[in-house]
Protein backbone atom coordinates (compact mmCIF):
# COMPACT_ATOMS: atom_id res chain seq x y z
CA UNK A 1 0.00 0.00 0.00
CA UNK A 2 2.62 2.47 1.04
CA UNK A 3 4.74 1.32 -1.86
CA UNK A 4 2.05 2.31 -4.30
CA UNK A 5 1.53 5.57 -2.47
CA UNK A 6 5.25 6.30 -2.58
CA UNK A 7 5.46 5.48 -6.24
CA UNK A 8 2.59 7.80 -7.03
CA UNK A 9 4.04 10.64 -5.02
CA UNK A 10 7.48 10.04 -6.50
CA UNK A 11 5.98 10.34 -9.94
CA UNK A 12 4.43 13.64 -8.98
CA UNK A 13 7.70 14.83 -7.58
CA UNK A 14 9.65 13.85 -10.63
CA UNK A 15 8.17 16.87 -12.28
CA UNK A 16 9.88 16.32 -15.57
CA UNK A 17 7.93 13.16 -16.19
CA UNK A 18 4.81 13.64 -18.25
CA UNK A 19 2.04 14.69 -15.91
CA UNK A 20 -0.34 11.85 -16.35
CA UNK A 21 -2.79 10.79 -13.70
CA UNK A 22 -1.22 8.40 -11.24
CA UNK A 23 -2.83 5.03 -10.75
CA UNK A 24 -5.25 5.18 -7.87
CA UNK A 25 -6.83 2.38 -6.00
CA UNK A 26 -8.37 2.15 -2.57
CA UNK A 27 -7.86 5.00 -0.19
CA UNK A 28 -4.69 6.40 -1.75
CA UNK A 29 -5.74 9.55 -3.43
CA UNK A 30 -3.17 11.43 -5.37
CA UNK A 31 -4.80 13.09 -8.30
CA UNK A 32 -2.95 15.06 -10.86
CA UNK A 33 -5.00 17.14 -13.20
CA UNK A 34 -3.35 19.68 -15.46
CA UNK A 35 -0.27 19.60 -13.34
CA UNK A 36 -2.08 20.19 -10.07
CA UNK A 37 -1.49 17.60 -7.39
CA UNK A 38 -4.00 16.86 -4.70
CA UNK A 39 -2.07 17.21 -1.45
CA UNK A 40 -1.79 14.07 0.63
CA UNK A 41 -3.96 14.16 3.77
CA UNK A 42 -1.93 13.46 6.90
CA UNK A 43 -2.64 13.80 10.60
CA UNK A 44 -0.15 15.70 12.68
CA UNK A 45 -1.07 15.02 16.28
CA UNK A 46 -0.38 17.94 18.60
CA UNK A 47 3.02 17.24 20.13
CA UNK A 48 2.85 16.31 23.79
CA UNK A 49 4.58 18.32 26.48
CA UNK A 50 6.68 16.04 28.67
CA UNK A 51 9.27 16.45 31.38
CA UNK A 52 9.04 20.12 32.17
CA UNK A 53 8.11 21.39 28.75
CA UNK A 54 5.37 23.97 28.43
CA UNK A 55 2.47 23.00 26.20
CA UNK A 56 2.94 26.30 24.37
CA UNK A 57 6.39 25.19 23.17
CA UNK A 58 5.05 21.82 22.03
CA UNK A 59 2.25 23.63 20.19
CA UNK A 60 4.76 25.97 18.54
CA UNK A 61 6.84 23.04 17.31
CA UNK A 62 3.73 21.26 16.02
CA UNK A 63 2.73 24.40 14.15
CA UNK A 64 6.12 24.71 12.42
CA UNK A 65 6.12 21.02 11.41
CA UNK A 66 2.66 21.51 9.97
CA UNK A 67 3.57 24.75 8.17
CA UNK A 68 6.64 23.13 6.62
CA UNK A 69 4.77 20.11 5.32
CA UNK A 70 1.73 22.03 4.10
CA UNK A 71 3.97 24.73 2.63
CA UNK A 72 5.59 22.16 0.39
CA UNK A 73 2.28 21.82 -1.39
CA UNK A 74 2.47 18.02 -1.09
CA UNK A 75 0.58 17.57 2.17
CA UNK A 76 -2.68 18.67 3.73
CA UNK A 77 -2.83 18.50 7.50
CA UNK A 78 -6.18 17.20 8.73
CA UNK A 79 -7.71 19.43 11.39
CA UNK A 80 -7.17 18.04 14.89
CA UNK A 81 -10.87 18.71 15.46
CA UNK A 82 -11.56 15.71 13.23
CA UNK A 83 -9.36 13.36 15.23
CA UNK A 84 -11.28 10.45 16.76
CA UNK A 85 -8.68 9.29 19.26
CA UNK A 86 -6.35 12.02 20.45
CA UNK A 87 -2.79 10.94 21.19
CA UNK A 88 -2.33 11.12 24.96
CA UNK A 89 0.94 9.25 25.30
CA UNK A 90 3.92 9.09 22.95
CA UNK A 91 4.37 5.41 23.71
CA UNK A 92 0.84 4.09 23.48
CA UNK A 93 -0.11 1.95 20.46
CA UNK A 94 -1.66 3.71 17.49
CA UNK A 95 -5.36 3.01 16.90
CA UNK A 96 -5.02 2.75 13.11
CA UNK A 97 -8.73 2.31 12.52
CA UNK A 98 -9.42 5.74 14.01
CA UNK A 99 -6.95 7.37 11.61
CA UNK A 100 -8.17 5.39 8.61
CA UNK A 101 -11.65 6.59 9.42
CA UNK A 102 -10.63 10.20 8.81
CA UNK A 103 -8.61 9.17 5.73
CA UNK A 104 -5.25 10.13 7.20
CA UNK A 105 -2.66 8.52 4.93
CA UNK A 106 0.12 9.25 7.40
CA UNK A 107 0.25 10.05 11.09
CA UNK A 108 2.93 12.11 12.84
CA UNK A 109 3.15 11.96 16.63
CA UNK A 110 5.64 13.77 18.79
CA UNK A 111 6.67 14.91 22.22
CA UNK A 112 8.78 17.72 23.58
CA UNK A 113 10.76 17.84 26.81
CA UNK A 114 12.94 20.52 28.36
CA UNK A 115 15.94 20.21 30.64
CA UNK A 116 17.56 23.48 31.60
CA UNK A 117 18.18 25.32 28.32
CA UNK A 118 18.02 22.09 26.36
CA UNK A 119 14.98 21.13 24.31
CA UNK A 120 14.44 17.59 23.07
CA UNK A 121 11.81 16.90 20.43
CA UNK A 122 11.01 13.37 19.28
CA UNK A 123 8.61 12.09 16.68
CA UNK A 124 7.23 8.99 15.00
CA UNK A 125 5.74 8.59 11.55
CA UNK A 126 3.14 5.94 10.75
CA UNK A 127 1.76 4.60 7.48
CA UNK A 128 -1.85 4.36 8.51
CA UNK A 129 -3.13 2.03 5.81
CA UNK A 130 -0.16 -0.33 6.15
CA UNK A 131 -0.58 -0.13 9.92
CA UNK A 132 3.16 0.17 10.43
CA UNK A 133 5.71 2.76 11.47
CA UNK A 134 7.50 4.43 8.54
CA UNK A 135 11.08 4.47 9.76
CA UNK A 136 12.21 4.63 13.36
CA UNK A 137 11.35 7.21 15.93
CA UNK A 138 13.96 9.95 16.13
CA UNK A 139 14.73 12.72 18.54
CA UNK A 140 16.54 15.98 18.10
CA UNK A 141 17.97 18.20 20.79
CA UNK A 142 19.10 21.77 20.80
CA UNK A 143 19.33 24.90 22.86
CA UNK A 144 16.16 26.80 23.69
CA UNK A 145 16.40 29.31 20.88
CA UNK A 146 16.82 26.49 18.35
CA UNK A 147 13.31 25.12 18.73
CA UNK A 148 12.33 26.04 15.19
CA UNK A 149 15.29 24.05 13.88
CA UNK A 150 14.09 21.00 15.79
CA UNK A 151 10.71 21.35 14.12
CA UNK A 152 12.30 21.83 10.67
CA UNK A 153 14.43 18.70 11.18
CA UNK A 154 11.37 16.66 12.08
CA UNK A 155 9.49 17.98 9.05
CA UNK A 156 12.51 17.19 6.85
CA UNK A 157 12.43 13.60 8.13
CA UNK A 158 8.73 13.24 7.42
CA UNK A 159 9.11 14.76 3.95
CA UNK A 160 12.10 12.55 3.14
CA UNK A 161 10.51 9.33 4.37
CA UNK A 162 7.31 9.86 2.42
CA UNK A 163 8.76 11.26 -0.78
CA UNK A 164 12.09 9.47 -0.94
CA UNK A 165 13.69 12.87 -1.59
CA UNK A 166 15.81 14.92 0.75
CA UNK A 167 14.05 17.66 2.68
CA UNK A 168 14.71 21.40 2.56
CA UNK A 169 13.17 22.94 5.67
CA UNK A 170 16.23 23.20 7.95
CA UNK A 171 17.95 25.77 5.77
CA UNK A 172 18.73 29.46 5.57
CA UNK A 173 18.36 32.15 2.92
CA UNK A 174 20.64 35.14 2.52
CA UNK A 175 19.11 38.01 0.56
CA UNK A 176 19.06 41.79 0.07
CA UNK A 177 16.57 43.71 2.23
CA UNK A 178 15.45 46.89 0.49
CA UNK A 179 13.96 50.13 1.77
CA UNK A 180 13.21 53.54 0.31
CA UNK A 181 11.76 54.77 -2.98
CA UNK A 182 12.79 53.31 -6.30
CA UNK A 183 15.21 56.14 -7.14
CA UNK A 184 16.84 56.15 -3.69
CA UNK A 185 16.82 52.52 -2.70
CA UNK A 186 18.86 51.37 0.28
CA UNK A 187 20.03 47.78 0.43
CA UNK A 188 21.28 45.60 3.27
CA UNK A 189 22.34 41.99 3.42
CA UNK A 190 20.08 39.88 5.60
CA UNK A 191 19.78 36.21 6.47
CA UNK A 192 16.75 34.27 7.65
CA UNK A 193 15.35 30.76 7.91
CA UNK A 194 13.89 29.48 4.63
CA UNK A 195 10.41 30.37 5.92
CA UNK A 196 11.29 33.94 6.89
CA UNK A 197 11.81 33.38 10.61
CA UNK A 198 14.87 34.39 12.64
CA UNK A 199 15.86 37.27 10.38
CA UNK A 200 18.99 39.24 11.10
CA UNK A 201 20.88 41.89 9.15
CA UNK A 202 24.48 41.39 8.08
CA UNK A 203 25.28 44.91 6.83
CA UNK A 204 23.91 48.39 7.40
CA UNK A 205 22.34 50.55 4.73
CA UNK A 206 25.34 52.82 4.17
CA UNK A 207 26.71 50.86 1.22
CA UNK A 208 25.01 49.46 -1.86
CA UNK A 209 25.22 45.65 -1.81
CA UNK A 210 24.06 43.14 -4.42
CA UNK A 211 23.53 39.44 -5.14
CA UNK A 212 24.90 37.54 -2.11
CA UNK A 213 25.77 33.83 -2.07
CA UNK A 214 26.06 31.68 1.06
CA UNK A 215 28.72 29.02 1.63
CA UNK A 216 27.78 25.37 2.22
CA UNK A 217 28.49 25.64 5.93
CA UNK A 218 26.59 28.91 6.18
CA UNK A 219 29.54 30.69 7.70
CA UNK A 220 30.54 32.88 4.77
CA UNK A 221 28.68 35.15 2.39
CA UNK A 222 30.05 36.40 -0.93
CA UNK A 223 28.51 39.56 -2.33
CA UNK A 224 29.13 42.65 -4.43
CA UNK A 225 29.69 45.86 -2.50
CA UNK A 226 30.16 49.50 -3.47
CA UNK A 227 32.08 50.24 -0.27
CA UNK A 228 35.06 51.49 -2.27
CA UNK A 229 32.83 53.50 -4.57
CA UNK A 230 33.23 50.85 -7.23
CA UNK A 231 31.62 47.41 -7.35
CA UNK A 232 33.88 44.71 -6.01
CA UNK A 233 33.44 41.26 -4.52
CA UNK A 234 33.53 40.92 -0.76
CA UNK A 235 33.52 38.03 1.70
CA UNK A 236 31.60 38.33 4.96
CA UNK A 237 31.97 36.10 8.03
CA UNK A 238 28.46 35.49 9.37
CA UNK A 239 29.80 34.92 12.88
CA UNK A 240 31.82 38.11 13.30
CA UNK A 241 30.16 40.13 10.50
CA UNK A 242 33.64 41.14 9.38
CA UNK A 243 33.96 41.85 5.68
CA UNK A 244 36.99 41.91 3.43
CA UNK A 245 37.42 42.71 -0.25
CA UNK A 246 38.64 39.73 -2.25
CA UNK A 247 39.82 41.54 -5.32
CA UNK A 248 40.77 45.13 -5.87
CA UNK A 249 42.60 45.88 -9.06
CA UNK A 250 42.50 49.62 -9.71
CA UNK A 251 40.51 50.47 -12.79
CA UNK A 252 38.49 47.26 -12.73
CA UNK A 253 35.13 46.24 -11.32
CA UNK A 254 34.32 42.80 -9.93
CA UNK A 255 30.90 41.33 -9.29
CA UNK A 256 28.80 38.17 -9.62
CA UNK A 257 30.77 36.07 -7.07
CA UNK A 258 29.91 32.38 -6.60
CA UNK A 259 31.31 29.68 -4.34
CA UNK A 260 32.68 26.43 -5.69
CA UNK A 261 30.96 23.34 -4.23
CA UNK A 262 33.91 22.76 -1.86
CA UNK A 263 33.80 26.41 -0.78
CA UNK A 264 37.47 26.98 -1.55
CA UNK A 265 37.17 28.86 -4.81
CA UNK A 266 35.24 31.92 -5.91
CA UNK A 267 34.10 32.42 -9.48
CA UNK A 268 33.38 36.00 -10.49
CA UNK A 269 33.15 38.55 -13.27
CA UNK A 270 35.81 41.19 -13.78
CA UNK A 271 35.10 44.21 -15.94
CA UNK A 272 38.00 46.07 -17.46
CA UNK A 273 37.71 48.68 -20.17
CA UNK A 274 34.05 47.80 -20.60
CA UNK A 275 34.74 44.11 -21.25
CA UNK A 276 33.49 41.56 -18.73
CA UNK A 277 35.02 38.08 -18.42
CA UNK A 278 34.94 35.23 -15.89
CA UNK A 279 37.74 34.57 -13.43
CA UNK A 280 38.34 32.37 -10.45
CA UNK A 281 40.51 32.72 -7.37
CA UNK A 282 40.92 31.06 -3.98
CA UNK A 283 38.47 32.34 -1.39
CA UNK A 284 41.47 32.74 0.90
CA UNK A 285 42.95 35.23 -1.56
CA UNK A 286 45.54 35.10 -4.31
CA UNK A 287 45.89 35.77 -7.99
CA UNK A 288 42.81 35.54 -10.21
CA UNK A 289 42.89 33.04 -13.06
CA UNK A 290 41.11 34.13 -16.21
CA UNK A 291 38.61 31.59 -17.56
CA UNK A 292 37.12 33.35 -20.59
CA UNK A 293 38.67 35.70 -23.13
CA UNK A 294 36.04 37.22 -25.32
CA UNK A 295 35.04 40.79 -26.18
CA UNK A 296 31.49 39.97 -25.05
CA UNK A 297 29.87 39.94 -21.60
CA UNK A 298 30.50 36.76 -19.59
CA UNK A 299 28.85 36.74 -16.17
CA UNK A 300 26.53 34.95 -13.71
CA UNK A 301 28.56 31.72 -13.44
CA UNK A 302 27.47 28.63 -11.50
CA UNK A 303 29.45 25.45 -10.83
CA UNK A 304 28.01 21.99 -11.40
CA UNK A 305 27.62 20.11 -8.09
CA UNK A 306 30.77 18.05 -8.86
CA UNK A 307 32.72 21.24 -9.54
CA UNK A 308 33.81 20.09 -12.99
CA UNK A 309 31.75 22.40 -15.19
CA UNK A 310 30.48 25.97 -15.15
CA UNK A 311 27.22 27.25 -16.60
CA UNK A 312 27.23 30.99 -17.33
CA UNK A 313 25.62 33.62 -19.50
CA UNK A 314 27.23 35.39 -22.42
CA UNK A 315 26.10 37.68 -25.21
CA UNK A 316 28.84 36.46 -27.56
CA UNK A 317 26.15 35.41 -30.05
CA UNK A 318 24.61 38.90 -29.98
CA UNK A 319 22.16 38.35 -27.13
CA UNK A 320 22.23 36.90 -23.62
CA UNK A 321 22.36 33.08 -23.79
CA UNK A 322 23.47 30.20 -21.56
CA UNK A 323 26.71 28.26 -22.05
CA UNK A 324 28.53 25.42 -20.28
CA UNK A 325 32.29 25.13 -20.21
CA UNK A 326 34.87 23.04 -18.29
CA UNK A 327 35.71 24.41 -14.84
CA UNK A 328 39.22 25.32 -16.05
CA UNK A 329 37.81 27.30 -18.95
CA UNK A 330 38.01 26.37 -22.60
CA UNK A 331 35.46 25.67 -25.26
CA UNK A 332 31.90 26.47 -24.25
CA UNK A 333 28.75 24.98 -25.70
CA UNK A 334 25.55 26.94 -25.92
CA UNK A 335 22.55 25.29 -24.27
CA UNK A 336 19.75 27.89 -24.68
CA UNK A 337 18.10 28.18 -28.07
CA UNK A 338 14.53 29.35 -27.53
CA UNK A 339 13.22 32.83 -28.33
CA UNK A 340 14.31 35.70 -26.07
CA UNK A 341 17.24 36.22 -23.74
CA UNK A 342 18.49 33.88 -21.01
CA UNK A 343 20.43 34.90 -17.90
CA UNK A 344 21.42 34.11 -14.31
CA UNK A 345 21.72 30.33 -14.72
CA UNK A 346 22.01 28.22 -11.56
CA UNK A 347 22.97 24.55 -11.58
CA UNK A 348 20.64 22.32 -9.55
CA UNK A 349 22.17 20.64 -6.48
CA UNK A 350 20.93 17.36 -8.00
CA UNK A 351 22.95 18.11 -11.11
CA UNK A 352 20.19 17.43 -13.60
CA UNK A 353 18.75 20.88 -14.27
CA UNK A 354 19.72 24.49 -14.79
CA UNK A 355 17.33 27.17 -13.53
CA UNK A 356 17.46 30.51 -15.32
CA UNK A 357 15.83 33.87 -15.96
CA UNK A 358 14.24 34.28 -19.36
CA UNK A 359 13.27 37.59 -20.92
CA UNK A 360 10.96 37.46 -23.90
CA UNK A 361 8.53 39.94 -25.44
CA UNK A 362 8.58 42.25 -22.45
CA UNK A 363 7.94 39.52 -19.87
CA UNK A 364 10.27 37.75 -17.48
CA UNK A 365 10.17 34.08 -16.54
CA UNK A 366 11.89 31.68 -14.22
CA UNK A 367 12.49 28.41 -16.01
CA UNK A 368 14.40 25.17 -15.89
CA UNK A 369 16.06 23.10 -18.60
CA UNK A 370 18.22 20.02 -18.67
CA UNK A 371 21.95 20.64 -18.84
CA UNK A 372 21.95 19.80 -22.54
CA UNK A 373 19.35 22.50 -23.10
CA UNK A 374 16.46 20.10 -23.69
CA UNK A 375 13.06 20.10 -21.99
CA UNK A 376 12.96 23.83 -21.28
CA UNK A 377 9.97 24.66 -19.10
CA UNK A 378 8.91 28.07 -17.84
CA UNK A 379 7.64 28.04 -14.25
CA UNK A 380 6.57 31.67 -13.83
CA UNK A 381 5.69 34.80 -15.77
CA UNK A 382 5.53 38.41 -14.62
CA UNK A 383 6.67 41.95 -15.27
CA UNK A 384 10.04 41.08 -13.72
CA UNK A 385 11.07 37.70 -12.32
CA UNK A 386 14.78 37.05 -11.96
CA UNK A 387 17.63 35.38 -10.11
CA UNK A 388 16.57 31.81 -9.25
CA UNK A 389 18.20 29.89 -6.36
CA UNK A 390 17.68 26.19 -5.60
CA UNK A 391 16.27 24.58 -2.48
CA UNK A 392 18.71 22.10 -0.90
CA UNK A 393 16.89 19.17 -2.51
CA UNK A 394 16.56 20.68 -5.98
CA UNK A 395 12.75 20.63 -5.87
CA UNK A 396 11.93 24.28 -5.28
CA UNK A 397 13.26 27.52 -6.75
CA UNK A 398 13.21 30.86 -4.94
CA UNK A 399 13.56 34.09 -6.91
CA UNK A 400 12.96 37.86 -7.01
CA UNK A 401 9.67 39.23 -8.35
CA UNK A 402 9.50 42.97 -8.85
CA UNK A 403 6.35 44.92 -9.54
CA UNK A 404 6.15 47.69 -12.14
CA UNK A 405 5.85 51.42 -11.85
CA UNK A 406 6.96 54.21 -9.56
CA UNK A 407 5.79 52.28 -6.50
CA UNK A 408 7.25 49.00 -7.74
CA UNK A 409 9.20 46.91 -5.28
CA UNK A 410 10.78 43.47 -5.19
CA UNK A 411 9.69 40.50 -3.07
CA UNK A 412 10.85 36.91 -2.72
CA UNK A 413 8.78 34.08 -4.18
CA UNK A 414 9.19 30.34 -4.42
CA UNK A 415 7.80 27.82 -6.87
CA UNK A 416 8.02 24.06 -7.22
CA UNK A 417 9.92 22.88 -10.31
CA UNK A 418 6.65 21.45 -11.57
CA UNK A 419 5.39 25.03 -11.70
CA UNK A 420 3.00 24.44 -8.80
CA UNK A 421 2.84 26.06 -5.39
CA UNK A 422 3.92 29.56 -6.35
CA UNK A 423 3.96 31.66 -3.18
CA UNK A 424 5.49 34.67 -1.58
CA UNK A 425 8.25 34.14 0.98
CA UNK A 426 7.52 36.35 3.99
CA UNK A 427 9.99 39.19 4.56
CA UNK A 428 9.46 42.31 6.69
CA UNK A 429 9.91 44.62 3.71
CA UNK A 430 11.00 44.62 0.10
CA UNK A 431 13.54 41.92 -0.68
CA UNK A 432 15.62 40.69 -3.61
CA UNK A 433 18.45 38.38 -4.67
CA UNK A 434 17.79 35.33 -2.48
CA UNK A 435 20.45 32.62 -2.15
CA UNK A 436 19.35 29.39 -0.50
CA UNK A 437 21.79 27.45 1.70
CA UNK A 438 22.17 23.66 1.66
CA UNK A 439 20.55 21.77 4.53
CA UNK A 440 22.23 22.75 7.77
CA UNK A 441 24.21 20.18 9.74
Amino acid at each position, binding site marked *: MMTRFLAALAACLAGLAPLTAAAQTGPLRIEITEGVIEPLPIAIAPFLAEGGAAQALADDITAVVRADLEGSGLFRAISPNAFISPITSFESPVQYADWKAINAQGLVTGAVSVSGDRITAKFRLFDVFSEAPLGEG*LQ*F*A*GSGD*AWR*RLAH*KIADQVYARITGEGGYFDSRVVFVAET*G*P*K*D*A*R*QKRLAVMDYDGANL*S*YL*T*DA*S*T*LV*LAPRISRD*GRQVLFTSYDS*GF*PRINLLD*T*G*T*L*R*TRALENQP*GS*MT*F*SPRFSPDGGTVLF*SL*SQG*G*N*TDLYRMPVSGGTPTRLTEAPS*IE*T*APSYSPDGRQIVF*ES*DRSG*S*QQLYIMPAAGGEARRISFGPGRY*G*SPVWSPRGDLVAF*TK*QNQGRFHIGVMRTDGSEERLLTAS*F*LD*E*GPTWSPNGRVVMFTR*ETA*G*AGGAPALYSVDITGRNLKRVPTPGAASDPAWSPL*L*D
Partner: protein
Amino acid sequence: MTRFSLLFVLTAAMVLSACTDRFGGPGAGAAGSAAGSASDPSSPAYFQQSVGDRVLFAVDESTLNAAARATLSAQADWLKANRMFTAVIEGHADEQGTREYNLALGARRASAAQEFLIAQGVAPDRLRILSYGKERPIEVCSTESCYAQNRRAVTVLATGAGA
Protein backbone atom coordinates in the same frame (compact mmCIF):
# COMPACT_ATOMS: atom_id res chain seq x y z
CA MET B 1 19.64 10.52 18.93
CA THR B 2 20.94 13.24 16.69
CA ARG B 3 22.54 16.14 18.37
CA PHE B 4 23.44 19.32 16.66
CA SER B 5 24.77 22.62 17.61
CA LEU B 6 23.41 25.83 16.33
CA LEU B 7 25.80 26.95 13.64
CA PHE B 8 23.98 30.03 12.74
CA VAL B 9 24.34 32.27 15.68
CA LEU B 10 23.96 35.63 14.13
CA THR B 11 23.75 38.83 15.98
CA ALA B 12 22.17 41.89 14.59
CA ALA B 13 25.10 43.94 15.74
CA MET B 14 26.53 46.01 12.99
CA VAL B 15 30.29 46.02 13.02
CA LEU B 16 30.71 47.38 9.58
CA SER B 17 32.14 50.80 9.61
CA ALA B 18 30.02 53.43 8.05
CA CYS B 19 31.20 54.26 4.60
CA THR B 20 30.71 57.47 2.77
CA ASP B 21 29.36 57.08 -0.68
CA ARG B 22 31.82 59.12 -2.67
CA PHE B 23 29.53 59.30 -5.58
CA GLY B 24 26.61 61.00 -4.03
CA GLY B 25 24.55 57.94 -3.19
CA PRO B 26 21.10 57.52 -4.61
CA GLY B 27 20.52 59.24 -7.88
CA ALA B 28 24.21 59.84 -8.28
CA GLY B 29 24.85 61.61 -11.48
CA ALA B 30 24.45 65.16 -10.40
CA ALA B 31 27.73 66.94 -9.77
CA GLY B 32 27.34 66.84 -6.04
CA SER B 33 30.19 69.18 -5.28
CA ALA B 34 29.11 71.72 -7.80
CA ALA B 35 30.89 74.90 -6.95
CA GLY B 36 30.14 78.19 -8.60
CA SER B 37 27.06 79.11 -10.57
CA ALA B 38 25.89 77.78 -13.87
CA SER B 39 26.85 81.08 -15.44
CA ASP B 40 30.52 80.45 -14.69
CA PRO B 41 31.76 78.42 -17.69
CA SER B 42 34.41 76.73 -15.60
CA SER B 43 31.94 75.53 -12.96
CA PRO B 44 30.69 71.96 -12.59
CA ALA B 45 27.17 73.41 -12.67
CA TYR B 46 27.88 74.82 -16.13
CA PHE B 47 29.30 71.48 -17.21
CA GLN B 48 26.25 69.69 -15.98
CA GLN B 49 23.64 72.05 -17.37
CA SER B 50 25.15 73.72 -20.41
CA VAL B 51 27.67 71.22 -21.69
CA GLY B 52 25.52 68.26 -20.73
CA ASP B 53 26.79 65.61 -18.35
CA ARG B 54 25.04 62.59 -19.81
CA VAL B 55 24.46 60.60 -22.96
CA LEU B 56 21.67 58.11 -23.62
CA PHE B 57 21.63 54.66 -25.23
CA ALA B 58 19.26 52.38 -27.11
CA VAL B 59 17.96 49.16 -25.53
CA ASP B 60 20.79 46.73 -24.78
CA GLU B 61 23.21 48.92 -26.75
CA SER B 62 26.41 50.77 -25.95
CA THR B 63 26.79 52.49 -29.31
CA LEU B 64 27.14 56.28 -29.21
CA ASN B 65 24.65 57.99 -31.50
CA ALA B 66 25.19 61.40 -33.11
CA ALA B 67 23.68 63.29 -30.19
CA ALA B 68 25.84 61.37 -27.73
CA ARG B 69 28.97 62.05 -29.77
CA ALA B 70 28.17 65.77 -29.87
CA THR B 71 27.66 65.91 -26.12
CA LEU B 72 30.86 63.99 -25.47
CA SER B 73 32.82 66.25 -27.84
CA ALA B 74 31.64 69.24 -25.82
CA GLN B 75 32.56 67.43 -22.60
CA ALA B 76 36.02 66.74 -23.99
CA ASP B 77 36.53 70.41 -24.87
CA TRP B 78 35.40 71.43 -21.42
CA LEU B 79 37.65 68.88 -19.67
CA LYS B 80 40.64 69.98 -21.75
CA ALA B 81 39.97 73.58 -20.73
CA ASN B 82 39.42 72.80 -17.05
CA ARG B 83 42.31 70.57 -16.12
CA MET B 84 41.80 70.70 -12.37
CA PHE B 85 38.89 68.31 -12.80
CA THR B 86 38.92 64.59 -13.12
CA ALA B 87 35.82 62.54 -13.88
CA VAL B 88 34.14 59.27 -13.13
CA ILE B 89 31.86 58.09 -15.90
CA GLU B 90 28.90 56.16 -14.49
CA GLY B 91 27.17 53.64 -16.74
CA HIS B 92 23.53 52.78 -16.09
CA ALA B 93 20.86 50.45 -17.45
CA ASP B 94 17.08 50.41 -17.35
CA GLU B 95 15.26 47.87 -15.19
CA GLN B 96 14.45 45.56 -18.09
CA GLY B 97 17.34 43.19 -17.61
CA THR B 98 18.93 40.87 -15.09
CA ARG B 99 20.97 42.51 -12.36
CA GLU B 100 24.45 41.24 -13.16
CA TYR B 101 24.09 41.51 -16.92
CA ASN B 102 23.06 45.12 -16.40
CA LEU B 103 26.20 45.74 -14.36
CA ALA B 104 28.27 44.51 -17.29
CA LEU B 105 26.15 46.52 -19.74
CA GLY B 106 26.62 49.67 -17.67
CA ALA B 107 30.36 49.10 -17.74
CA ARG B 108 30.22 48.79 -21.51
CA ARG B 109 28.32 52.09 -21.83
CA ALA B 110 30.66 53.94 -19.48
CA SER B 111 33.62 52.56 -21.39
CA ALA B 112 32.19 53.71 -24.71
CA ALA B 113 31.92 57.26 -23.37
CA GLN B 114 35.40 57.08 -21.83
CA GLU B 115 36.98 55.85 -25.06
CA PHE B 116 35.35 58.67 -26.97
CA LEU B 117 36.63 61.30 -24.53
CA ILE B 118 40.14 59.85 -24.71
CA ALA B 119 40.00 59.89 -28.50
CA GLN B 120 39.07 63.57 -28.28
CA GLY B 121 42.24 64.25 -26.32
CA VAL B 122 41.29 63.95 -22.66
CA ALA B 123 44.14 62.35 -20.70
CA PRO B 124 43.23 58.74 -19.82
CA ASP B 125 44.44 59.16 -16.23
CA ARG B 126 41.75 61.79 -15.63
CA LEU B 127 38.92 59.35 -16.35
CA ARG B 128 37.60 56.33 -14.50
CA ILE B 129 34.52 54.29 -15.22
CA LEU B 130 31.94 52.79 -12.92
CA SER B 131 28.77 50.79 -13.47
CA TYR B 132 25.63 50.94 -11.40
CA GLY B 133 23.70 48.57 -13.64
CA LYS B 134 20.00 49.11 -12.92
CA GLU B 135 20.57 50.13 -9.30
CA ARG B 136 20.30 53.91 -9.66
CA PRO B 137 17.40 54.89 -11.91
CA ILE B 138 16.62 58.60 -12.15
CA GLU B 139 13.15 57.99 -13.58
CA VAL B 140 10.86 55.52 -11.84
CA CYS B 141 8.05 54.71 -14.24
CA SER B 142 8.05 51.37 -16.03
CA THR B 143 7.63 52.59 -19.57
CA GLU B 144 10.01 53.44 -22.36
CA SER B 145 9.86 57.19 -21.57
CA CYS B 146 11.57 56.48 -18.26
CA TYR B 147 13.75 53.64 -19.49
CA ALA B 148 15.23 55.92 -22.17
CA GLN B 149 16.40 58.38 -19.49
CA ASN B 150 17.85 55.60 -17.34
CA ARG B 151 19.99 54.03 -20.09
CA ARG B 152 22.75 56.55 -19.65
CA ALA B 153 26.39 57.32 -19.07
CA VAL B 154 26.92 60.28 -16.76
CA THR B 155 30.21 62.14 -16.47
CA VAL B 156 30.60 63.07 -12.81
CA LEU B 157 33.29 65.64 -12.04
CA ALA B 158 35.68 65.55 -9.16
CA THR B 159 38.64 67.66 -8.23
CA GLY B 160 42.09 66.53 -7.19
CA ALA B 161 44.77 64.37 -8.61
CA GLY B 162 44.08 60.92 -9.93
CA ALA B 163 40.51 59.99 -10.52
